[in-house]
C-alpha cells in the first residue's frame, strides 16, 4: 500500500476513535484530588510549555492571582509550571491551575479515561489578580464547586455529546457561544442542585450559571479533550490532536507524532473590544479552548451560529464561507453534531495536517482576547488562525519519522 493510503487508513482510525469517545461530566473536585502527584507549588497553564521568563502578561497575571488565592508568597519564577495538556486537562485562556482550584472532571465512558477542564470565568483567566478576581475564585472553591459536585454526583453524570448536539441546534458553536447548552445544562441540573444543596446555595448557584452564558465552555472543552485524546498516538496518523496557545506560543500536536509540540509565535486575534480597550491592548492568542476546534466545534461550526457573527465583525456569509472551508482540511463529518441551517450536515472534524499544508487553509478559531499586560479582565473577542509554521514543522517531523 502506498504511504499516503496507509496514512489515510490511520487517519480514519483516529477519527473513528475520536467519534467513539463518550464524554460525560462526572464531578467537580480540587486540582490536587484530580491530578495524581500534583506538587504543592505546581502550576498548570494553557498552551505548550513556557517558562516564567517567556510567559505572556495575562498568564503571569493569572499566576499572581493563583498565588494570592493559595496564599503563596514565593517568587512566581520558583513555581513548577507545566501545560494542562501534559497533565491530562485543558483550561480556557490563561488556564492557570493551582492545587486548590476546582476542576470539572469528565470521563470517557467508552474507555474509562478521565480528563479535567479548568473553570471558565472572565477575570483571573484573563490576567486580573485584584480582590474581585481572587474573591470569585474563592466563591468557586467554597460554594459553587462543592454544590456542582454534589449535584452531578447525585445525577450520575451528564452525557455531553447529545447535549452539545442540542446546543448546536439552538445556534451555539460551543467555544464563544455555548449559551443554549448552558441553559440546557442548567435545566437538567436544577432538580439535582435543589436536592443536594441548601436552598440558598442552590439558588445562588442557579443564578450564577444563569448569569454566565459561557458557563458550558469548560464542559465543551472537557468533552473535546476526551475526544481528541482518544485519537492520540495512532501510528501514521496526521490528524491534529491538540491546538493550544499560552499567549506567547501557539502549539500543535499530531496523532502520529505523539506528545511532541510544534510551536510558533502565537498570533493576535482580530475582533471586537470591550469599551475602554482597543486592538493596541490585545495580547497574543491564549488558551487551550482551541481543543473545541480540534474536534470540529467553535470556528468550524460558525455556519450554525449566526448570532455570534457580529461579535467577530463578520457577515453571516463571510463566517459561513470561512467555516465551510474547514471541510477542505478535515476528513469526516460528525454524525450527531449537525447544523439545521445546512440541512443537518455534520460538523467537519479530523483536521488532516497534510491537507492544511497542501491547501494553506488554516483552521479558524473563535477566541476571547486578553490584555497584553497583567491585571485586566476580558477585553474582547474575535477570530484567529494558527501560524502556518506549526503545521510545516509538524509535517517535517512526521516525514522524518515515517517517510
Amino acid at each position, binding site marked *: 500500500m502506498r504511504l499516503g493510503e496507509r496514512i489515510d487508513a490511520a487517519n480514519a482510525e483516529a477519527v473513528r476513535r475520536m467519534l467513539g469517545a*463518550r464524554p460525560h461530566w462526572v464531578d467537580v473536585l480540587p486540582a490536587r484530588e484530580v491530578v495524581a502527584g500534583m506538587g504543592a507549588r505546581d502550576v498548570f497553564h494553557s498552551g505548550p510549555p513556557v517558562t516564567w521568563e517567556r510567559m505572556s502578561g495575562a498568564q503571569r497575571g493569572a499566576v499572581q492571582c493563583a498565588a494570592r488565592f493559595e496564599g503563596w508568597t514565593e517568587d512566581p519564577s520558583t513555581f513548577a509550571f507545566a501545560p494542562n495538556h501534559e497533565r491530562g486537562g485543558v483550561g480556557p485562556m490563561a488556564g492557570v491551575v493551582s492545587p486548590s482550584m476546582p476542576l470539572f472532571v469528565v470521563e470517557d465512558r467508552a474507555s474509562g479515561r478521565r480528563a479535567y477542564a479548568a473553570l471558565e470565568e472572565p477575570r483571573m483567566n484573563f490576567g486580573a489578580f485584584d480582590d474581585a478576581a481572587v474573591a470569585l475564585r474563592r466563591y468557586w472553591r467554597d460554594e459553587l464547586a462543592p454544590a456542582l459536585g454534589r449535584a452531578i454526583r447525585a445525577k450520575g453524570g451528564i452525557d455531553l455529546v447529545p447535549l452539545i448536539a442540542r446546543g448546536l441546534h439552538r445556534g451555539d458553536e460551543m467555544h464563544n457561544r455555548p449559551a443554549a447548552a448552558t441553559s440546557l445544562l442548567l435545566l437538567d441540573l436544577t432538580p439535582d442542585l435543589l436536592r443536594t444543596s441548601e436552598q440558598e446555595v442552590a439558588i445562588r448557584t442557579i443564578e450564577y450559571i444563569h448569569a454566565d452564558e459561557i458557563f458550558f465552555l469548560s464542559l465543551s472543552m472537557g468533552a473535546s479533550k476526551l475526544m481528541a485524546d482518544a485519537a492520540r498516538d495512532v501510528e501514521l496518523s*496526521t490528524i491534529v490532536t491538540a491546538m493550544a496557545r499560552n499567549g506567547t506560543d501557539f502549539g500543535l500536536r499530531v496523532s502520529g507524532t505523539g506528545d511532541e509540540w510544534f510551536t510558533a509565535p502565537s498570533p493576535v486575534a482580530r475582533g471586537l473590544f470591550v469599551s475602554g480597550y482597543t486592538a493596541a491592548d490585545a495580547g497574543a492568542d491564549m488558551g487551550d479552548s482551541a481543543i473545541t476546534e480540534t474536534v470540529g466545534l467553535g470556528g468550524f461550526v460558525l455556519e450554525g451560529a449566526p448570532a455570534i457573527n457580529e461579535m467577530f465583525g463578520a457577515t453571516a456569509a463571510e463566517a*459561513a464561507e470561512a467555516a465551510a472551508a474547514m471541510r477542505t482540511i478535515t476528513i469526516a463529518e460528525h454524525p450527531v453534531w449537525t447544523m439545521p441551517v445546512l440541512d443537518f450536515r455534520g460538523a467537519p472534524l479530523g483536521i488532516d495536517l497534510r491537507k492544511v*499544508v*497542501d*491547501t*494553506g487553509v488554516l483552521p479558524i478559531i473563535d477566541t476571547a482576547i486578553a490584555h497584553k499586560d497583567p491585571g485586566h479582565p476580558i477585553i474582547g473577542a474575535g477570530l484567529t488562525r494558527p501560524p502556518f509554521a506549526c503545521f510545516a514543522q509538524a509535517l517535517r517531523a512526521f516525514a522524518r519519522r515515517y517517510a
Partner: protein
Amino acid sequence: MIRTRILANTYRDSGTLMTLAAKLQDEPDVVRAMAIMATPRNRELLATMVSLPPLEAGPGDLLVVVEGDRAEAALAKLEQLLVRRVSSSSSSRARRVAVTNANLAMISVPGPFAAREARKALRNGLHVFLFSNGVALEDEIALKADARERGLLLMGPDCGTAIIDGVPIGFANRVRRGSIGIVGASGTGIQEVTTLIHRIGGGITHAIGTGSRDLSDAVGGAATLHGIELLARDEATETIVLISKPPSPEVAERVLAAARATGKRVVTCFVGGTRTLEAAALDACGLDAPVPAQPVTRNPPPVIGLFSGGTLASEARALTHGDIVDLGEEEFTRGRPHPMIDPTIRIERIRQVPAEATLLLDVVLGEGSHPDPAGALLDAIRSRNGITIASVCGTELDPQPRDAQVAKLREAGVMVARSNAAAALGDLAELSRLPTPPAARSAAPLFGSPLAALNIGLDSFAETLDGHSVPVERVDWKPPAGGDEELAQILERLL
C-alpha cells in the same frame, strides 16, 4: 409484530425523529412507527402506547419502534432513512457552485505545480484538461500512464483547446455539433479545423486535445491513442480527424493504425507537411481541397508574419518561406499574457513592419481570446502603408462574431482570406461550402455523464463553462505548502 432498534449515541432533533417515524410508517405493511430519544420521560410516554420488553437505552440513544407485518424489513432501511439530504442550495455563496459530480478538472496553475494538481485530480477519478505548460516530460509520461490505468483521459500538458459534448474548453470556438471528431496535439490547429468545418457546413462531436508533446517518441501518442479509442466508441462520430505537427514515423504508424482500426473515416493533417488545415477540414466534410496556389517564388515581396497561434505560424512558415514570428513563443510571453489575450506586443511589432513588406496576420476568435482581437490591431495596421493579409479563425457563434471582425479588418484595408493557409498563399477565393449541411447529430456525453467541471487556475475557463450552463466549481488554488518547494516535496511523499 413489534420490532425495536436502538441506535446508541445517536442524538437527533425531534423534527428529524418525526420525519424518520413518518418515513418508516410509509414503508409497506407498517401499522405504526415511533422514533424517540430514549429519555426517561419519552420512554414513559412510549410505554403508554406500546408494551415493550425491557430495553438497554439511555437519553443519548435513539429508540425506534415499528409495528407491522414487515417491521423488520422497514427497520432494515433505518440507516438509509436517517441519512441527511445533501444540500444542493448554496445561493449565499456567490459564484460558487458545489459540483459533487464533477468529471473534468481544468488545470491552469503554474507549471511546477501542475503535475501535482493533475495527479490529485486523477486520483479523485476526474478526467483532466491540463492547460499548463512547463510540466516535466517524465511527469507527463507518468501522468498519462496513470490516467490510462484509471480509464481517465488526460488532455495535455500544454493543451489549449478542447470541445467536449459541444462545450468549448480553454481557448476554443463555438461550433455546430455534427459527426466529425477530432484528436489534436495542437491548439490553434484544432481551432482552425473546427471553425473551418463549421463554416463549410459540417459539425463536431468532440475535439480532444492531447498536448503538444503527445506524439513525440517519449510520450508515444498515449493521449492520442486514448482519444481515438473514445471517438471509436462514440456512435455520433463518423469521421476522425488527426491533427499534429509531423510525428516520428513509428508513433505516426501506431496512431494511424489505431485510427484505421476503428473502421471510421480517418483524415490526417500533419501541419507543416504536405497538407493544410483547410484541406483537412474540407476532406473531413467530404469535399475536395482546391488545388493549392503555388507560392510566388520569383521576386516575391518580403512577407513578415506576426502570429498569435503557434500552429498557424508553423503552417504559414511552411507555405510562404517568409519571416514568420510566433509571438506566443516563450521569449515573447515571459511576464505578460499570451498575444491571443493581450495584443500589445503584436501592435508594437506591426508598427515596425516596413511598408514594402506584406504583413501576414492570424486573428484568433473564440472563448478565452481578446474580446475584440481585430479591433485592437486596426490602428497599428492603418499606421503603416503596406499590404496586409489576414485570416480570421472563428465562427459567427463566437463571443466576437466572425463577420463583424472580418468587416472591421476589411474596412482598414486588410485582405481577409478564408483560412490561414489561403492567407499565407495570397489566395482570396471563397471557402467551399456543403450544398446542404448534414443534419447535426448530437454526440453522447464523452465521459459517460454530462460535463461538470472543477476549475483550478484561470477563471476565464470557468466563465466559459458558466456561459454554456455547465456546472463548474472554482477551486481556490494556492501553491501547496505555502509555496515552500522543499515542504511541498515532503508533502508529496505523504499523499
